[in-house]
């Protein structure tokens, strides 16, 4: 049986395909004539490859399959999350070449690195043991460090890259230490094995042992770093601000989806029976993230820093659903993260499109008077801001609605109340942006022309956020099936 599993490559089709494409593109880029715009060419091919992967994921077999000696798992849950990651990466790649061309760092390696990171994210989603978890996480992280510092002539980008690398390495160390503790106290690395060893029938009514709990806390800390949740969020604002904007968009979108998938799997599969043990950790992280995200963003004047704090807050809201510890909770997180993805991609498309005399602008005050010059563009930003704030009838409201419902359902009413109050505070700074765009005047207008790729992305994302309330079933049905897959 084991031998057969070893050679069953079908469940890992997507990953294998993508890694082959990435290697081929590396060769192609290296041997292509320097004169041509190889970045745009390579990235178009990469986007096509991502679309093919998306097709494989969506059309492929969604039943549970385990391969590579039980290290790798695919199921409906993984398919849902992988689809989100692939969409997120593809959209980010669409938005990248135009920006890098203007900044004169137009190098094709970026796309290849992004593909490697994507494979890492897909593997994170499919990780079924602590070893594959760690390997996948590193495969995802290392290209991200390089991408952050991609604008190597700029001091801020290099600083951000270094900061991200050092703190990321620390977090990986903490995570690995947690894994060793768990392994030491249970004797197994695989998630099903852990679930069996830790099943309540095996160890009775008592607790799972202090060693395992400490291990779990370390693992949670490592995952919280990847999610940029408080108290492991310190890197986020600096990295978001310092990295080139397309990289910031990349960081804010797909890796968070993957990290959330991994977190759900770790907490629900090996430790699913011990929700009472980890619930308080998640509740704490969630509350701290929501509050910090809400309050720290108020004073920001840089748009990317503000979005960093907003991202921290949103992860806090998503964790409210996770804290519920129920199937309903997972479902709500899946809905939330999908909506978060569309809002984030849309809002970063807006940030990328903001230019004055050809140079990118990042200050919030630069948006002043935008509504007069480019009403549709300003309206799209307003849609994202109100959606991020969770004002109905926009999509962001439904995300919050589902997580709070899951929390109340699980008896976590205080958590839900803190959550809604944090969302009121958060609403303040989102509306400040709307206010600056619509109420203020400017003498120094921004450039009129928005790149075609940005207008398409932000148009689609804005329509999704506006029209979500009309046919919510489209997304909700998929999320429900995905959540169910984790529990059967």
């Amino acid at each position: 049986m084991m031998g057969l599993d070893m050679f069953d490559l079908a469940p890992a089709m997507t990953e294998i395909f993508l890694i082959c494409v990435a290697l081929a593109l590396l060769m192609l880029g290296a041997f292509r004539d320097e004169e041509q715009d190889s970045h745009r060419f390579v990235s178009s091919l990469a986007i096509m490859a991502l679309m093919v992967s998306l097709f494989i994921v969506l059309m492929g077999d969604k039943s549970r399959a385990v391969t590579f000696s039980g290290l790798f798992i695919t199921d409906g849950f993984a398919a849902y999350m992988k689809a989100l990651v692939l969409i997120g990466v593809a959209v980010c790649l669409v938005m990248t070449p135009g920006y890098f061309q203007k900044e004169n760092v137009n190098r094709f390696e970026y796309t290849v690195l992004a593909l490697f990171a994507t494979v890492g994210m897909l593997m994170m989603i499919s990780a079924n043991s602590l070893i594959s978890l760690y390997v996948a996480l590193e495969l995802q992280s290392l290209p991200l460090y390089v991408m952050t510092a991609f604008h190597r002539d700029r001091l801020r980008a290099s600083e951000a890259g270094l900061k991200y690398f050092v703190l990321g390495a620390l977090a990986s160390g903490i995570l690995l230490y947690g894994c060793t503790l768990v392994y030491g106290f249970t004797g197994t690395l695989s998630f099903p094995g852990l679930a069996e060893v830790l099943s309540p029938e095996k160890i009775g009514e008592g607790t799972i042992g202090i060693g395992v709990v400490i291990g779990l806390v370390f693992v949670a800390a490592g995952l919280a770093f990847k999610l940029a949740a408080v108290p492991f969020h310190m890197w986020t604002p600096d990295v978001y601000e310092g990295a080139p904007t397309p990289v910031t968009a990349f960081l804010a979108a797909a890796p968070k989806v993957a990290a959330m998938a991994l977190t759900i799997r770790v907490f629900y599969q090996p430790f699913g029976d011990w929700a009472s043990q980890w619930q308080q950790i998640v509740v704490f992280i969630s509350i701290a993230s929501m509050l910090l995200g809400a309050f720290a963003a108020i004073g920001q004047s840089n748009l990317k820093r503000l979005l960093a704090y907003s991202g921290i807050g949103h992860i806090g809201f998503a964790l409210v659903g996770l804290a519920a510890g129920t199937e309903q909770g997972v479902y709500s997180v899946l809905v939330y993260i999908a909506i978060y993805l569309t809002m984030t991609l849309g809002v970063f498309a807006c940030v990328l499109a903001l230019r004055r005399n050809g140079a990118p602008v990042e200050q919030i005050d630069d948006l002043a008077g935008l509504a007069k010059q480019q009403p549709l563009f300003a309206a799209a930003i307003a849609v994202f801001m109100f959606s991020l704030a969770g004002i109905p009838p926009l999509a962001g409201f439904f995300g919050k609605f589902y997580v709070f419902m899951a929390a109340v359902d699980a008896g976590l009413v205080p958590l839900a109340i803190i959550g809604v109050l944090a969302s009121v505070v958060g609403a303040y700074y989102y509306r400040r942006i709307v206010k600056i765009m619509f109420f203020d005047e400017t003498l120094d207008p921004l450039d009129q022309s928005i790149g075609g790729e940005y207008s398409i992305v932000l148009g689609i994302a804005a329509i999704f956020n506006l029209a979500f309330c009309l046919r919510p079933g489209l997304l909700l049905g998929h999320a429900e099936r995905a959540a169910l897959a984790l529990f059967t």
Partner: protein
Amino acid sequence: MSDWPLLSLVIFLPLAGAGFILLIRGEEEVVNQNAKAIALWTAGITFLLSLMIWGNFDYTRSDFQLVERIEWLPGLNINYHVGVDGISLFLILLSTLTTLVCIGVSWESVQVRVKEYMVAFLVMETFMVGVFCALDFVLFYIFFEGILIPMFLIIGIWGGPRRVYSAFKFFLYTLLGSVLFLVAILVMYLQEGTTDIPTLMTATFDPTLQNWLWLAMFASFAVKVPMWPFHTWLPDAHVEAPTAGSVVLAGVLLKLGGYGFLRFSLPMLPEATAYFTPLVYTLSIVAVIYTSLVALMQTDMKKLIAYSSVAHMGIVTIGIFTLNPLGIQGSIIQMLSHGLVSAALFMCVGVVYDRLHSRDIDYYGGLVHRMPGYALVFMLFMLASVGLPGTSGFVGEIMVLIGVFQVNQWVALFAATGMVLGAAYMLWLYRRVIFGDLTKEHLLMIRDLRPHEIASFAPLIILVLLMGIYPALFLDPMAASVDHLLTQAGALPETELAGGQAGEALR
């Protein structure tokens, strides 16, 4: 005819009009003219359609009528469910009428970003009508919150000098209340497994839980009404909002709180309602007396009327919590009356503000010499606000006072005091602005009402008089629903039919 989705049509037609306006392109002058024309036509047709709701409304039935129901959020038992009863019927009409009036008011006074302005008002109309039609909690909440977005923009873009501060204060106050309401919705949903409002009205909740739910809802509705001490956003919002913004704020938005009490707090949480009635009475009395005194001291006309709104809405909340047919019907009439009268008073301020750009009471004086038509209109609404018999204000106040007198004489006494104070500040305002000699230099050339202003005032004048002279026209449709509401609130035994009692008492 009756197969038409009439309610959905009324809800979404303004949205379609707004979408249409967004598509207009071309010269700014032409765009502005077309935007106004489309907005006027859309609002007009919507108003006519909403009159058809009244036409199709069956007075004898107490349940929801013209119901539409479509599955919306699958697997959660949350539906797109709309309908009207006697309580919401006139509030829907008030919303469509107010929007129409608002567009008339803004015809000349709004010069910048006309297109966006009309879009904001039409979107707001969709939300306002939707709120009163919604029979599903989630749907209700979406409309309820959605109103904040256009209102925020209206105050913030077209408002006065301190508009940004006011817009933020308005938004944060109301949002803070609403999110607690959302938690209450979630708790009720998880208790009963549905967000269907008619179903939840028949549900019974544990008394302790009821108290918490009631408080969570109170946080939201008390801010909207607004009740003392949650009213401080209102004067700021009114003063800074453009005239039409004030009109819609006073005309419809303040009614959301009262409607929320009637629709949710009373029928769904009867024990908690009984338990908290003294609290509501106390806050309302403070509101009536305190804000009347504050109004006396104002030097800004809009602020004065804003404070008078708080006082009038205090009468409404007292009426709602009398839990007898007379009081509740009175409070609904009072809401409608206040919607018309205070909207008209804000328009009166707007008329002189458009001409001289000042709202200071001292800036004016002796206007009757130059503006006799204006003085007449202002007088009518001023007297309606005071509660002169023959105007709508009288009907509402007297019904509430009789209703509350049956329950608690002291509350009736204090509420009546507030009305005396109300007469004092309104008459004094009128005297200072309209009467006296026309000595001030800048007033010598002021012009009387123009045709579009008269056209905006006309429907309000007719309705205020109609409601004052023949209130049965409005009381009859709501009688059955109010009795039904009181049986649900446990204040009226199932068998006793008090229908029409209130109307008869008046005749």
